[in-house]
C-alpha cells in the first residue's frame, strides 16, 4: 500500500513534466479529402530523423536542435474538392482534450478561415511543452500537435529555410 502511494506520488510529481499527445485523428475525414497529409512522428522516429539531419549544415543543425527535445510531431492536413466538406464540430473532440494547462494564445475567426493556437504551459517550465494549431478553412483543415518543449527562438531560426516562411515569434503570441 505504501509502495503504491509512493509510486502515485512520484507519478503525480513527474506528470507535469511530460507533454500531452492528443488524438487528432478524425475518422472518415481522409475518405472525403482530395489530398491528405498524415504525419506521425513519435520520439523514436524523431531520434531516427535526427541522425539523418546533418550537423555540418547550419539549417539542418537548427532543425536537429528543435527535434532533439521533442517527444512527438503529429500533423493531419486535409484538402477538399468542395467547400464545407467537413463539419467544424469535429474539432470539438480535439479541443475537449486540452486540459487546464493549455492556453489559447491565438484565436482568429474570419469569414473564410479560423485559426487557433494553443500552448501547453506547465508549472515550472519557462517554455511551452506542447503546441496545437488548428487551421480551418472551407476547403482545408489542418491540425498540428507538437509534443515536447518548443523553443520559439530556435523555431524562428528556421525562417526562410526548407520552405518555412518568415515569421516573428512575437507575431505568434501577441494576440489573444
Amino acid at each position: 500500500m505504501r509502495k503504491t502511494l509512493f509510486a502515485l506520488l512520484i507519478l503525480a510529481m513527474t506528470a507535469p513534466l511530460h507533454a500531452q499527445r492528443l488524438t487528432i485523428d478524425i475518422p472518415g475525414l481522409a475518405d472525403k479529402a482530395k489530398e491528405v497529409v498524415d504525419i506521425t512522428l513519435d520520439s523514436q522516429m524523431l531520434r531516427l530523423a535526427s541522425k539523418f539531419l546533418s550537423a555540418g549544415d547550419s539549417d539542418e543543425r537548427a532543425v536537429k536542435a528543435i527535434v532533439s527535445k521533442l517527444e512527438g510531431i503529429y500533423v493531419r492536413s486535409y484538402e477538399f474538392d468542395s467547400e464545407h466538406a467537413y463539419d467544424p464540430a469535429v474539432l470539438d473532440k480535439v479541443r475537449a482534450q486540452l486540459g487546464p494547462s493549455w492556453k489559447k494564445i491565438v484565436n482568429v475567426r474570419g469569414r473564410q478561415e479560423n485559426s487557433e493556437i494553443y500552448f501547453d504551459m506547465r508549472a515550472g517550465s519557462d517554455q511551452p511543452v506542447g503546441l496545437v494549431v488548428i487551421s480551418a478553412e472551407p476547403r482545408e483543415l489542418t491540425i498540428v500537435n507538437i509534443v515536447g518543449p518548443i523553443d520559439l527562438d530556435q523555431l524562428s531560426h528556421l525562417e526562410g529555410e526548407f520552405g518555412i516562411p518568415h515569421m516573428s515569434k512575437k507575431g505568434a503570441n501577441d494576440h489573444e
Partner: protein
Amino acid sequence: MNLDEELKLALRRKEPPPRFRDRVLAATKQRPRKIWRPLAAAALLTLVIGGTTARYVEQRREGERAKEQVLLALRITSQKLHDTREHIHELSK
C-alpha cells in the same frame, strides 16, 4: 657409411603400414564433405553481410523518410503560424 649407402638405405622400398590403403581410401571419401565447409561458411558470411547491408539500407531509407517528414511537418506548422499572423495583421488594419 658413405653418401650412396645412406641414400640407398633412405630410399629403399618399404611396405606400407597395415590398413594404409584403407585409411587413404577412407580419407579420400571424406574429402568432398570438407569442401562444403568453406562453401557453407562463405554462404553464411554472404547472408550475414547481405542481411546487414539490407538492414542498413532499409534503416537509412526509413531515416531519410523520417527526416523528410520532420521537415514537412515543420514547414506546415510554420506556414500555419505565418498564415495566422498574416490574418491577424489583415484584421488589425
